[in-house]
């Protein structure tokens, strides 16, 4: 049986194999229209805008020296919000490190996210990781790790466990196109293919792995093509078209939930900013490269659709922007005023309980002199 993904793939072969739904005039291709209500379209736009406004605020805070680091998603909002929206409530997301928008959409409280950015006592990970390395089990959102690709095999194992227990759960793993060069990409797709796990591999192809362009990651025709070697169908989607991202992700979830196994989605987008606040893309990337992508801005494109439908007029957007501004200001104020994690928490959670050697080291720390630098 030909799955819908395969027919999508065939049908759109004439358009460079890339699935698109949202046309340049703001109308939708009826063949793949995911059928969102007006409220849903506005809801998605608000979340994409929130994601962008949070990004802007965090970059400012980092430039002001108030937080140490931020890794953003400027230009990639549709890939993140669209894919997270397409997952069902019982499903899970295994993040890379650029998907805070997905976490917020799934219910990660904004205040907790800002607490993480400041590494304070209310940070869900207790100030133990860099900013943007958080966890939110309640939102069915995994744990952010810096090593590339490690979450891919974990998402497969998680989905496999759900399958063994006959639970209707699908797991989506995010990663960048750079991660397709990692061991874990190969391991994850191979295991998913062999054990037919209900996994969605969501590759955000944003063109760059820090300074290394896609030509240096692969000689394959596309990243989606790599699925074929593992018996995992691959599909390319216009990652700046949220309707297409939702349509393709929903189809991958349906396949997984019906026991047809994993899908590899390559969402083609563009990293409009640096890799992170620590990166200076002017050293390796010509600004002219950004111009065509500015015209394809995912927020602008969804805005075009909303305008055509007469939804969320400018006055409402301005009101929303000022509401977000106030929320962010408050979140920053609260996070900044919250004290650092207590000294003794340094030793918690290494093990379930404290072994003798950590008891000794904890006593040594508490009795010893304090470090001169202020805590973040």
């Amino acid at each position, binding site marked *: 049986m030909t799955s819908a993904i395969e027919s999508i793939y065939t049908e759109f072969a004439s358009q460079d194999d890339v699935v698109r739904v949202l046309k340049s005039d703001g109308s939708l291709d009826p063949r793949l229209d995911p059928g969102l209500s007006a409220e849903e379209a506005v809801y998605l736009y608000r979340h994409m805008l929130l994601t962008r406004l949070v990004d802007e605020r965090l970059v400012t805070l980092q430039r002001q020296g108030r937080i140490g680091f931020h890794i953003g998603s400027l230009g990639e909002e549709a890939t993140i919000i669209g894919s997270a929206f397409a997952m069902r409530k019982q499903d899970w997301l295994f993040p890379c490190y650029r998907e805070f928008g997905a976490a917020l959409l799934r219910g990660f409280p904004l205040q907790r996210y800002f607490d993480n950015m400041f590494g304070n006592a209310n*940070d869900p990970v207790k100030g133990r990781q860099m900013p943007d390395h958080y966890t939110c089990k309640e939102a069915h959102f995994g744990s952010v790790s810096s090593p590339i690709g490690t979450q891919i095999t974990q998402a497969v194992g998680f989905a496999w466990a759900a399958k063994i227990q006959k639970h209707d759960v699908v797991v989506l793993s995010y990663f960048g196109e750079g991660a397709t060069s990692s061991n874990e990409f190969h*391991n994850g797709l191979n295991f998913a293919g062999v054990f037919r796990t209900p996994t969605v591999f969501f590759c955000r192809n944003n063109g760059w792995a820090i300074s290394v362009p896609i030509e240096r990651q692969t000689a394959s025709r596309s990243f989606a093509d790599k699925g074929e070697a593992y018996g995992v169908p691959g599909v390319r989607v216009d990652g700046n078209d949220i309707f297409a991202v939702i349509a393709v992700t929903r189809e991958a979830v349906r396949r997984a939930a019906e026991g047809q196994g994993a899908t590899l989605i390559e969402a083609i987008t563009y990293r409009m900013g640096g890799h992170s606040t620590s990166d200076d893309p002017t050293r390796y990337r010509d600004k002219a490269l950004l111009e065509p992508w500015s015209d394809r801005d995912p927020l602008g494109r969804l805005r075009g659709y909303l305008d055509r439908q007469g939804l969320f007029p400018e006055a409402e957007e301005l009101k929303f922007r000022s509401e977000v501004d106030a929320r962010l200001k408050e979140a920053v104020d609260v996070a900044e005023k919250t004290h650092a994690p207590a000294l003794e928490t340094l030793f918690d959670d290494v093990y*379930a309980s404290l072994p003798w050697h950590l008891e000794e080291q904890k006593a040594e720390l508490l009795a010893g002199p304090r470090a001169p630098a202020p805590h973040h």
Partner: protein
Amino acid sequence: MPQMNMVQAINDALRIAMRKDERVVVLGEDVGKVGGVFRVTSGLFDEFGDSRVVDTPLSEGGIIGAAVGMALYGMVPVPEIQFSDFIWPAYDQIVSEVAKYRYRSGGEYTSKMVIRTPVGGGIRGGHYHSQHPEAQFIHVAGLKVVCPSNPYDAKGLLLASISDPDPVLFFEPKRVYRAAKGDVPEGEYTVPLESASVAREGQHVTVIAYGAMLYEAIDAAEKAAAQGVEAEVIDLRTLWPVDIETILTSVKKTGRLVIVHEAPKTCGFGSELLSLVCEKAFYHLEAPPVRVTGYDTPFPYTLEMEYLPLSHRILPALLETARAA
């Protein structure tokens, strides 16, 4: 009470754990139909089926990465790495993920699993089937490391490891898989983690050993006794967190210490044991402590019996330490 060898005792522990708790799953290379290359998982596939005893693709990184995901979902994976020499492709998952999940997620997620893997030389395995890499894992915050020497302890420690809330690396000394035999009670029992045992009592010198080298230490101790030196031999059983009290009690009694392990000397686990004894019992020492270990070379094939810290090398070290003024 039934007599078992190590292979049978570990197999028995796995069967008991899997019967008791459906969340326990075994996965690895050749662990299913054939029952593992050492037959440790023999019969489990027939009893529990291929969703709980899983032959995986040939990828250690994939095995441990997938096991992490299973653990996050609430299962209790017991992955097997066929030889500990092949564990390195999974090192990133073990170090950066398995060991760190509880800490890095503020306690929200845990990656509880027991990684079983055969270790050690003296089996004509050459470099890639003989190494004893405990030090690289003891150094990693968040892991517990176990290495039994006999069937009774192997069963009891494995059951304790499976019910322990933390991830455990369970090293099985393959040289004595079948050679070490002993009484093993039927049914469930545990040997507590972090507890060493005194395998032989003595008052002149303390010898610390574990795994297959325990038998070499005991052999050397028996020979030393014929020359009037009574060695106390400690079997660590759990390497980390180590049972420091048992070590210190013995060293304070004897004032002399010999540490034996197969792994290379430099930055081997003996270095840490020796540092701990120096920090905590320096003024009780009456002679320089001695390490009898593998050499700082790759593990050799033809000359492996010269490389290993066998009884013939332990005995002179033990006598010299005991007799040093």
